[in-house]
């Protein structure tokens, strides 16, 4: 089975992605991760204004069969969360890099992204 690994994201070994947008960074979990979890039924993340730290737990995702912690791919302050996931958590399965995004963050230090895996490196990890 092959998984989508978009070239415009950076990746964490724990299967979260981060993508630079206009001055902010969006993040979520990868296609591989959503497939491993199966049907996502619940996503719990902190709210706007709270801060997250690279490599630290910032929330929880639950599928029908499992609970998993989410680890922040970058440090920063949350500027928005994906409200859609409250009622439609399956968006994480359907569109993990698009409508299934989780947080938009004002990064503390964008150079932290360099420490993440490139798309090629992440593809090797899940191969």
């Amino acid at each position, binding site marked *: 089975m092959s998984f989508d690994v978009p070239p415009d994201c950076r990746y964490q070994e*724990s*299967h979260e992605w981060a993508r630079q947008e206009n001055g902010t960074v969006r993040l979520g*979990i990868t296609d591989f*991760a959503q497939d*491993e*979890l*199966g*049907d996502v*039924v*619940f996503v*719990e993340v902190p709210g706007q204004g709270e801060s997250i730290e690279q490599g630290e737990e910032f929330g*929880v995702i*639950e*599928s*029908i*069969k*499992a*609970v*998993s912690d989410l680890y922040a791919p970058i440090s920063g302050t949350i500027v928005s969360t994906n409200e859609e996931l*409250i009622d439609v958590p399956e968006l994480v*399965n359907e569109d993990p890099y698009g409508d299934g995004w989780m947080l938009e963050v004002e990064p503390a230090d964008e150079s932290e992204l360099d420490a993440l895996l490139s798309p090629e490196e992440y593809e090797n990890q899940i191969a």
Partner: protein
Amino acid sequence: MPAAHCSDMTLRSPPIEHETKATDFGGWEMPVEFDSIRAEHEAVRERVGKFDVSHMGQITVSGSDAQRLMQRLTTNDVTALDPGEAQYAGITDEDGILLDDTVVYHLPESEGEYLFIPNAGHDEQMLDRWNRYREEWGLDATVTNRTTEYGMIAVQGPDAPNLLGDQTDVSLNKLGNFEVRTGMVAGADCLIARTGYTGEKGFEVLCPWDTTQQVWDALDCQPCGLGARDTLRLEMGFLLSGEEFHPEENPRNPYEAGIGFVVKLDTEFVGRDALEGVEAEGPEEKLVGIILRDRGIPRSGYTITSPDGEELGTMTSGTMSPTLGEPIGLAYLPVEYVGDKHPVRVVIRDEPKKAHTRTTPFLS
């Protein structure tokens, strides 16, 4: 994220080749999901699905004292079974603690030959138990573990009679609940029972091990894994051996587990005297359904408290119900919580979440 389950050389393999994620279940390497738990679950509720349940044990008991041995080691009344009939039963120890739950079949076209189905990984233990008591009581019976002689396929859902009916010479519409017949299925000599673990119409087919793949292939419907098997049984409030009861980690008697209806105190069986006492006094705790009102998923091991924080019990199972779209689970609670709408809290990651009790089955 969870690591993929890796295979283990010591695991037993079912007789069907599955190209999907597998997990260790009772020492067997069994498929968890084929497509998605939700899709598989919905197929069974709305149409039909098939499950490889070859991990379930099969033990036959024959001989002039077979009925007596079965009667004395299971809680239900085996003498009530005519050939071709089956019943659900508990297997209890001297203290009335559930060791396993099982279905006992009086084999069709036999005079007093029985088959029972222990849960995955319990077959050797039950074989030993049966042989030990047979010897102790000096009974004439032959107990044989046939777990790797039979594969087992469950075909479940409203369309199950049509789907299976196309592959067999047995008149399925004449097969009542908990009845069993021998017959050909897809060219294999099988036992077909009108039993299941989903709450839907359905059948369980026991096939000679080497024919299981051909029977599986002939049943053209959604393949389902252990994940959907669990969500389907939970919506019905059915017990899972090892979760709702476990002789060491969660010792429970049948009254606590809500299966007092299979305890026949007017029969003689191991555990009867202890259970008579439990029945007279009533259990202090019982298994109750839980529905979460706040967001979250109740899961096995989570603590249940009263609204003011007093600890009441522990969840034994839980999931997001695909049919109801609500988070559901089972927990042992003091008997005053039996019934609907008693407010409780489920402690999820240190946060008390609002929930209430619910009489099972969750699906009406």
